[in-house]
């Protein structure tokens, strides 16, 4: 497996149920707050309500237009991208003439699951074609590139729950091979009734706040949001301080089952191995792990066991108790949180965990915890058996 040169991360942007900016998210996580609730934006006739984490009130559409023009997923992606760009000292004008790539992961953002449209189509009334036209305008990476008038590689990754992590890894590779000089990379997904129906049909959602790694965990809480990083090549960045560094990326498949992870974590271990080799670091160098940690029985069992084998004793947490499972956005959000936590020298508690599960073996941190090291790992496990890992380094601040 090849070595990958470190890539500077110069900007971070995040919004989700924990906050509308990265600093809001970090502050609420470190205060140990979470607000899962029954869905507000839509209704279903399920006999029970599964808790979710929608964006808080106060989210302002970045395009200053109604939600009819672009999908909510695109609006979230753009909002996070603008925050990350501002953090990196860029705006649309200063980017002009630069070679800028956009790599965004999503699941909902690309699916033609407009159930209101389809309900009308099946029924007597004529469906609103505006919904379809909005869908055809709304590819997340393409919208960012178009809105900022960028010229460069563009990619929307649809690798289910590892999309955001994969998009960041792919975007970094563009810089290494000179395909562009700046990359806007991460993930975005809105919460939709369709996804809510889908995950609850798999019986992996919880009617209570989720409990990642806990012995009584029943399932996940869905969320929504976007997490975006700005990556820069050194010739463009020059003396600008990096917020963090992307040291390595690895990915691999379980090749096992459409929805269940391999019980031995085959793909996750391969992805970790590739990332360690790429970053030229050893497991002993890792100061903490931001896990996938959805709170489902299967995921947490497999992940916990792999952590106990590959990274024994390394502090880890799941931030999904605070954000919910944001699907394509998760990898982007968690990369941003990991970089921010390295800067802060502290990780938040793994909310929702109280009692260990012997089958999981490892236990996450139960309070805010100081960390001294400079290298951390963020991982994502996806439907279809995709596993993706980022190794991130502390920045220059």
């Amino acid at each position: 497996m090849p070595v990958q040169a470190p890539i500077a991360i110069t900007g971070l942007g995040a919004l989700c149920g924990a906050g509308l900016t990265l600093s809001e998210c970090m502050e609420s996580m470190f205060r140990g707050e979470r607000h899962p609730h029954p869905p507000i934006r839509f209704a279903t006739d399920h006999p029970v309500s599964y808790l979710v984490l929608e964006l808080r009130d106060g989210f302002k559409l970045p395009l200053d237009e109604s939600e009819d023009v672009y999908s909510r997923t695109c609006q979230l992606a753009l909002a996070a991208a603008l925050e990350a760009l501002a953090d990196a000292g860029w705006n649309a004008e200063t980017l002009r003439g630069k070679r800028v790539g956009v790599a965004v992961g999503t699941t909902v953002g690309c699916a033609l699951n407009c159930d209101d449209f389809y309900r009308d189509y099946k029924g007597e009334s004529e469906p609103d074609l505006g919904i379809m036209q909005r869908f055809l305008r709304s590819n997340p990476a393409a919208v960012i590139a178009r809105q900022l008038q960028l010229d460069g590689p563009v990619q929307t990754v649809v690798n289910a729950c590892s999309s955001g992590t994969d998009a960041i890894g792919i975007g970094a590779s563009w810089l290494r091979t000179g395909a562009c000089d700046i990359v806007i990379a991460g993930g975005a997904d809105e919460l939709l009734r369709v996804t809510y129906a889908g995950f609850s049909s798999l019986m992996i959602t919880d009617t209570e706040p989720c409990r990642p790694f806990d012995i009584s965990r029943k399932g996940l809480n869905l969320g929504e949001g976007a997490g975006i990083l700005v990556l820069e090549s050194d010739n463009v960045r020059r003396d600008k301080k990096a917020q963090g560094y992307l040291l390595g990326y690895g990915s691999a498949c379980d090749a096992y089952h459409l929805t269940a992870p391999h019980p031995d974590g085959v793909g996750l271990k391969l992805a970790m191995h590739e990332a360690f080799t790429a970053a030229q670091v050893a497991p002993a160098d890792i100061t903490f792990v931001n896990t996938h940690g959805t709170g489902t029985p299967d995921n947490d069992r497999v992940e916990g066991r792999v952590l106990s084998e590959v990274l024994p004793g390394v502090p880890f947490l799941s931030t999904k108790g605070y954000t919910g499972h944001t699907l394509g956005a998760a990898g982007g959000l968690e990369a941003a949180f990991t970089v921010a936590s390295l800067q802060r020298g502290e990780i938040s508690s793994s909310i929702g965990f109280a009692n260990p599960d012997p089958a999981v073996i490892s236990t996450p941190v139960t309070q805010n915890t100081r960390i001294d090291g400079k290298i951390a790992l963020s991982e994502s496990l996806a439907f279809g058996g995709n596993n993706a890992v980022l190794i991130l380094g502390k920045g220059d601040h």
Partner: protein
Amino acid sequence: MSVKEKLKRVLIEDLNLEDVEPEDITDDMALFDEGLGLDSLDAVELVVIVQKHFGVEIKDMVESRPAFQSINTLAKYIEERMP
């Protein structure tokens, strides 16, 4: 049609078991792993099948696991709870 007969038919249809006839599924045959060879995704689909065709809700997979052993056990579970 008995619950067992109907169960076999809807299983074949909704799980798309194309080359299987109702007569091929014996009442005590294991539904999962050996026997019919269903897996965890079929298990949650089976919950939907039972809800849709018999009106019986299965809330907890762990609790109802014994019911999923065979046609016999599943039919009994359904008959006890049918509205």
